[in-house]
């Protein structure tokens, strides 16, 4: 086990009574990071964040400091949009950060605006999160009253409004260009990249930085303790600490902050400090390492560290820090169906392979699950996947505008390569699949026989 003594950086106030109020926040180092930032030049703050090697925590894992540098010089205004739309199945950490420590997020937003030169920030909270909206509204009102947000912050020449905005129920709005469409008051449908990379052409076609709630919540600590102290924690590309939500068939489901890059899946799932092992003494069957869009991992991946590069190379992703554990009793056909149904329901309908493909995948899986599947159904399923994401590779190729369509392919490719016998049993006849499935986490599975009898 590699359980470390790393401090809790973003969750330090989760268990503190009234940690969401400005009084408690300020009595626990609150707003010290902003003060430290204002004592530096904006470009020095960017350097500090680059030194920290802070990776984005929203899904793609892109370094925050580098992303900020993509805004074209001399084009104003720039905006900051905070992505608080958390809705990837399995993911639960941004809601906690917003409900329990809203000032930490607001302070992070202010530090980012100062560094990048953003003249307005929008904090987009998922519509269904009433308490998070309430806590952020209250925290912003407190912070305005103290002179920490708005005009001449802390008596300086730095001025920015932070506007609370909230959604209305649509997973796709978490995708950054759809988020921007939604913030313009439109249907939340993604834009094509290029040319609509937010840093260049974002909100109102102005340079816009979109960052996740957890990403920004790290900034107060980084500015207070220094980027180097942050980078001392973790390994390889993955520095600092990170929140992981461990759900499903474990003894102690929960949200745990662990040292990034060194803690392993085994630690997270089995340590008594974290999820405490599989329920009822059962065996692990599979687990989703980073949200429902990620290819599944298995027992042989347990000793991999929670490190972005390692997990990417193994053919999956840490995504949104969501580990969902299936024990031996899990019906994988049903599990895959539920995840695919999600993508079918949430497809925005803009591209044909996703709109039509995900609904077909749902229908075919549903009949297999109901015991009405045909022997040719598995091949059909994989063929539809191949049309949405050619080669069924990792990282996925896409015939679509955004990665939502290809996300529906991961659970199917995982289930079909590893548990083909369960599909065959459900169909009642041997099944074959000739369409190649090439992604690393799919093929790393012990060679699944090409044909399995029922």
């Amino acid at each position: 086990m590699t359980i470390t003594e790393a401090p809790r950086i973003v969750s330090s106030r989760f268990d503190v009574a009234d940690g969401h109020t400005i009084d408690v926040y300020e009595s626990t180092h609150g707003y010290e990071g902003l003060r430290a930032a204002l004592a530096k030049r904006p470009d020095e703050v960017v350097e500090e964040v680059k030194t920290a090697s802070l990776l984005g925590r929203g899904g793609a894992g892109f370094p925050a400091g580098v992303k900020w540098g993509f805004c074209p010089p001399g084009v104003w205004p720039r905006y900051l949009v905070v992505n608080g739309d958390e809705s990837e199945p399995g993911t639960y950490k941004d809601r906690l950060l917003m409900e329990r420590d809203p000032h930490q997020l607001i302070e992070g937003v202010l530090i980012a605006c100062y560094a990048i030169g953003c003249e307005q920030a929008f904090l987009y909270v998922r519509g269904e999160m009433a308490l998070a909206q309430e806590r952020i509204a209250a925290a912003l009102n407190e912070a305005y009253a103290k002179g920490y947000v708005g005009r001449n912050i802390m008596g300086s020449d730095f001025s920015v409004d932070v506007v609370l905005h909230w959604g209305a129920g649509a997973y796709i709005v978490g995708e950054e260009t759809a988020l921007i469409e939604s913030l313009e008051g439109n249907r939340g449908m993604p834009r094509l990249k290029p040319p609509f990379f937010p840093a260049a052409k974002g909100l109102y076609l102005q340079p816009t930085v979109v960052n996740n709630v957890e990403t920004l919540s790290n900034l107060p600590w980084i500015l207070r303790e220094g980027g180097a102290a942050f980078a001392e924690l973790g390994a390889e590309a993955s520095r600092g600490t990170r929140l992981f939500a461990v759900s499903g068939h474990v003894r102690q489901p929960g949200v745990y902050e662990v040292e990034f890059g060194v803690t392993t899946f085994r630690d997270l799932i089995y340590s008594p400090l974290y999820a405490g092992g599989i329920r009822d003494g059962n065996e692990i069957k599979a687990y989703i390492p980073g949200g429902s869009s990620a290819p599944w991992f298995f027992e042989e991946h347990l000793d991999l560290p929670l490190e972005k590069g390692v997990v990417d190379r193994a053919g999956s992703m840490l995504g949104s820090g969501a580990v969902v554990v299936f024990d031996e009793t899990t019906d994988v056909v049903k599990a895959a169906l539920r995840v695919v149904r999600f993508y079918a329901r949430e497809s925005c309908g803009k591209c044909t392979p996703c709109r039509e493909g995900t609904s077909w995948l749902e229908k075919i899986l549903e009949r297999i699950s109901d015991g009405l599947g045909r022997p040719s159904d598995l091949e059909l399923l994989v063929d539809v996947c191949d049309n949405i994401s050619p080669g069924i590779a990792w990282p996925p190729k896409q015939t679509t505008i955004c990665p939502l369509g290809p996300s529906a392919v991961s659970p199917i490719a995982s289930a079909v390569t590893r548990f083909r016998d369960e599909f065959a049993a459900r169909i009642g006849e041997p099944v074959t699949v000739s369409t190649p499935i090439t992604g690393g986490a799919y093929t790393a599975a012990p060679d699944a026989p090409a044909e399995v009898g029922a």
Partner: protein
Amino acid sequence: MSRLTPENVTLAEEIIGRYPRPKSALIPLLHLAQEQDGYVADDAMEHLAELVGVTPAEVLGTCSFYEMFKREPVGTYVVNVCTNISCQLLGGEELLHHAEERLGIRAGSTTADGRFTLEDVECIAACTEAPCLQVNYRYFHRITTDEFDALVDELAAGGRPDEIPPHGTLARVRQHIPDDRAAGPAVPGECGEPVWITARPAPAPEPRS
């Protein structure tokens, strides 16, 4: 009532004033209309169109994209049971079936007395607290069927008004930016380099030798 009340028009104008472009306020305003009437009425959409300067069709276009906006009256309590993966693994679907039996309706419909609407929803970010549900977007974690029945009884008997406001009300605290503290919206075409950047230029890069 369907157009916004005078008090809500004042609120709407305050919200619109925070954005560089009025249409950006549309989703918060649709929520305001839903808070007023419990659902988004056609007249309300027309009123919002006037307030943000777009056509009623554009308002409908936006409104109809988002799951939370109801264009017909729904129950006083909207009960959303999560059946997505983490909840499915721990009995979310069974909980939904129990709810259907208990309320005597299918997911997606409303009880005859207009008290409850039941929905089968996607992940609500409480995955470690499965199975879970929301009533008017207030969370209930790790809920058993017995607890579900007790909750329904309690709501039917008058509810928990302090904890669970009627459908349509989300946050009960609103953001208010005091005039003397506001930096103001950053309108494209009206902004130059921010003063705090201009006043602290980055040092010129070292000349290459």
